[in-house]
């Protein structure tokens, strides 16, 4: 709890500070039910549906990680495809050495988190735009290095071993569960991180970096932690991608298109809220499925929508919802409310665009 919260609470006796407003009490239960229902999908629905949902899980994981980077830590990375690719290759390498690709998945995620450390060291000196392009160069470099190893397929890639003799129905179901598990763990990890000290530091930095630094917030450490978590998360998504495609191709897994998709889904859904990427992923998947027969058009349209949203509705679709009904499914800030009254205002304001302005919010 921040100092401001405590002092305000003390000065006005009839005010209390809570994490959430009333309507959030049951969202945990609803989330649990949603996850359980989703987990039963392989028994209920056609395998075509679960295949699309696996894509959605991958995108949601990526978008949530990008949201953590750009929306909370102010790090616009255009090189997250480096981790998608590394995750896919980690699964491939472990599978070549005899591991089951599913068992390899958590190790791939951890490996990507570890790999993020030296990469962070390389780009951490740069800010904003230069950080963005530097991560892009880094992703290109990682791909060029991976392509030099012919034992893992060189420049053309190779099929993922370890599935021989596996029942295709079972394989589809396992892939689906792996995707679901990765997404649930990713969202839970982000939620818990943002509720803890890290979230507090990031919020302080967002509001005033100089003030946060001079109050002793370890800004560099917080940003590094976010980069490592995002690396692990994108790596896990890349691992699921490799499993769902049954092959690993360098130009496909290291494509900047991954970053385009995660960024567009996040921007459209709403930057700086956990709910945003969920909404954005849903919109993205619907558009993609609708426009699937028009090749690259879905990316063009989503790109244009993302530009318009970034300019005119900076809190995204979720921001529009939130502005009307003031609901937060995953509360990470604090509410200040008078006793027996509706919530008055937020102490730790929800993110309004990238620079919080009192009373702002377009």
């Amino acid at each position, binding site marked *: 709890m921040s100092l401001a919260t405590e002092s305000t609470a003390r000065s006005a006796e009839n005010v209390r500070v809570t994490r959430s407003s009333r309507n959030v009490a049951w969202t945990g239960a609803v989330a649990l039910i949603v996850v359980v229902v989703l987990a039963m999908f392989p028994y209920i629905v056609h395998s075509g549906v679960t295949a699309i949902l696996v894509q959605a899980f991958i995108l949601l994981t990526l978008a949530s990680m990008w949201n953590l980077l*750009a929306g909370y830590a*102010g790090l*616009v990375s*255009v090189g997250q495809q480096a981790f998608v690719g590394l995750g896919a290759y980690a699964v491939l390498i472990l599978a070549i050495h005899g591991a089951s690709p599913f068992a390899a998945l958590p190790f791939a995620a951890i490996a990507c988190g570890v790999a993020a450390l030296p990469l962070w060291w*390389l*780009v951490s*000196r*740069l*800010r*904003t*735009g*230069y950080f*963005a*392009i*530097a991560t*892009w*160069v*880094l992703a*290109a*470099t990682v791909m*060029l*290095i991976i*392509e*030099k190893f012919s034992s893992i397929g060189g420049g053309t890639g190779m099929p993922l071993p370890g599935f021989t003799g596996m029942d295709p129905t079972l394989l589809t179901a396992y892939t689906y569960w792996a995707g679901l598990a990765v997404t649930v763990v990713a969202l839970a990890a982000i939620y818990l991180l943002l509720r803890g000290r890290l979230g507090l530091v990031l919020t302080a930095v967002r509001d005033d970096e100089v003030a946060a630094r001079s109050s002793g917030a370890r800004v560099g450490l917080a940003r590094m932690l976010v980069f490592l978590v995002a690396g692990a998360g994108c790596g896990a998504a890349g691992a699921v991608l490799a499993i769902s495609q049954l092959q690993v191709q360098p130009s496909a897994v290291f494509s*900047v*298109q991954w970053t*385009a998709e995660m*960024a*567009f889904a996040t*921007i459209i859904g709403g930057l700086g809220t956990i709910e945003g990427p969920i909404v954005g992923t849903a919109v993205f998947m619907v558009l993609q499925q609708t426009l699937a027969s028009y*090749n*690259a*058009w879905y*990316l*063009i349209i989503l*790109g*244009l929508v*993302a*530009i318009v949203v*970034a*300019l005119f509705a*900076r809190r995204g679709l979720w921001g529009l919802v939130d502005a009307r009904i003031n609901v937060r499914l995953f509360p990470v800030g604090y509410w200040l409310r008078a006793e027996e009254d509706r919530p008055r205002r937020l102490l730790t304001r929800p993110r309004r*665009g*990238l*620079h919080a302005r009192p009373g702002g919010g377009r």
Partner: protein
Amino acid sequence: MAWVNAIIQGVLIGGLYALFACGLSLMFGVMKVVNLAHGDLAVVAGYIAIGIITIIHIPVLWSFLIVVPLMALLGYVLQRTILQGALDRSVLTTLMVTFGLSVVIENGLLQFFTANSRAIGTGLALVSGSFTVGSQIQIGYLPLVIFVVAVVVLLGLQYFLSASKFGRLIRAVADDKEAAQLSGADYRHVFGIAAAIAFGTVALAGIAYGMYSQLDPTAGTDTILLFAFAAVVIGGLGSLWGTLLGGVVLGVAQQIGAQISLSDEVLAGFIVFLAVLVLRPQGLISRGAQS
């Protein structure tokens, strides 16, 4: 001798990379905009040149006279509308908007012109011609011309910014746009002009690249943007001389890499970039710490 040749070729191609980097450097220096669509816009310029040449059958060199002003106009309009709008919101918004533009342009080109690569056919002896120095060093006329053009553009820009009246205005606005505004300069207009100049150099870079190599929709990011950025960082932010030096260092690194193994050309350039980032983050020619 092969190594000397590699270095000479690297220096020449470095001119092209400096030309790539020029607009990126200018936009950042003046507006603090890092334009992620930079390379894609260069490819657009190249495609426009190809279109004009095939439709109205003019000589290649004339196409510059049409495409460069056209892109400059586009630069002014983009800056006054979308980019200024994004700038008024936040730096991160400009990144998201220009990244969106980049993806939209690249996929638009892919959609309308397919992934096939195409070159700007000059029909001139200039492109294929070369002269020999000594016994083994062959210098193509085209890379030499591009290098000279790059040096002239960078020198001209440096002179324009430091000596001319409007150049001073641009620098004043870049230093403190509010103060410049109070002194009667409309900074939005000045930004627009700076963007127009930057886009003019982008057009030059795109057409030059189309003549030197081949254009395809992904060249904008894979080659032009990333090489331009590497040149800017190697040379040092905020210095046009540094940009030229950075381009040359990148070009030489790539050619030496290609000497070692043909597939290592691009990787060698990026490794030098990363080495500079670690060992000398302010760049080879530093103008104090920036961003």
